[in-house]
């Protein structure tokens, strides 16, 4: 506020800023999970409040048994420019995932478990979706310790109030 008073001319031309984001991660593939994680971490880096809401297969990112085994979808993924029959070869998904993981490491992008932990350390909230937990017959113990809570859609909206919602 003091800045506004001291530099009224700067305040007048200052563009609107984003103060809070709530990011939904709904897909369970590697390419489905990373964008939401990068956006959440990026928000915290800018000092923007961030909450992550994991739903449906996006829950794999916070599932103890699965978060180390998230893979790139090689079938029906036109972005890979790989023939569908080739994408279906045994081991193809693991191979592409391994190759991509190497490229990401070069850019200092952490593997999913480390990334989620890192985002939690930035002070962002991690939330599981109650409907998905029920649907997949999971319990709180199946989710990583960093998860803040398992919440309903209504609770998510209440939490997201006053900020932006990003669905991935």
């Amino acid at each position, binding site marked *: 506020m003091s800045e506004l008073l001291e530099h009224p001319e700067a305040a007048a031309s200052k563009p609107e800023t984003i103060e809070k984001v709530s990011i939904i991660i709904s897909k369970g593939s590697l390419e489905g999970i990373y964008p939401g994680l*990068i956006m959440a*971490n*990026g928000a*915290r*880096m*800018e*000092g923007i409040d961030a909450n992550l809401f994991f739903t449906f297969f996006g829950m794999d990112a916070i599932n103890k048994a699965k978060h180390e085994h998230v893979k790139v979808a090689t079938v029906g993924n036109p972005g890979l420019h790989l023939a569908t029959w080739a994408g279906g070869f045994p081991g193809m998904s693991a191979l592409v995932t391994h190759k991509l993981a190497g490229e990401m490491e070069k*850019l*200092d*992008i*952490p593997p999913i478990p480390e990334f989620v932990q*890192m985002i939690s*350390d*930035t*002070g962002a909230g991690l939330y599981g979706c109650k409907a998905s937990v029920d649907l997949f017959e999971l319990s709180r113990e199946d989710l990583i310790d960093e998860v803040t809570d398992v919440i309903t859609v209504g609770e998510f909206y209440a939490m997201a109030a006053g900020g932006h919602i990003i669905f991935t």
Partner: protein
Amino acid sequence: MSTVIYAGRPVEVDAEGFLQQPEQWTEQMAGEIGRANDIDALTERHWQVINFMRKTYLGTGSAPSIRTLGKVSGVPIKELYQLFPKGPAKLAAKIAGIPKPRGCI
């Protein structure tokens, strides 16, 4: 690009206040830049991060990622956000007198 006075010396900064020429920076400027960015007093832990940022930038030509900062600076990510609540990588770079980090991670 504009010129501002920190610790009695003129320095060139970009629109967000990041120094454009790290060699214009002096330690005496750090406290002043910090106060202008809502950090009232720089502790020893702040300095550990600031010195690491500066050393990495001067040595490699780019600022460290938040991941590297958390792993190598000796200050874990949780504490980094307590020290620099409005974004550690960005704020520490500003106080350390180096250009704004441009990484996404």
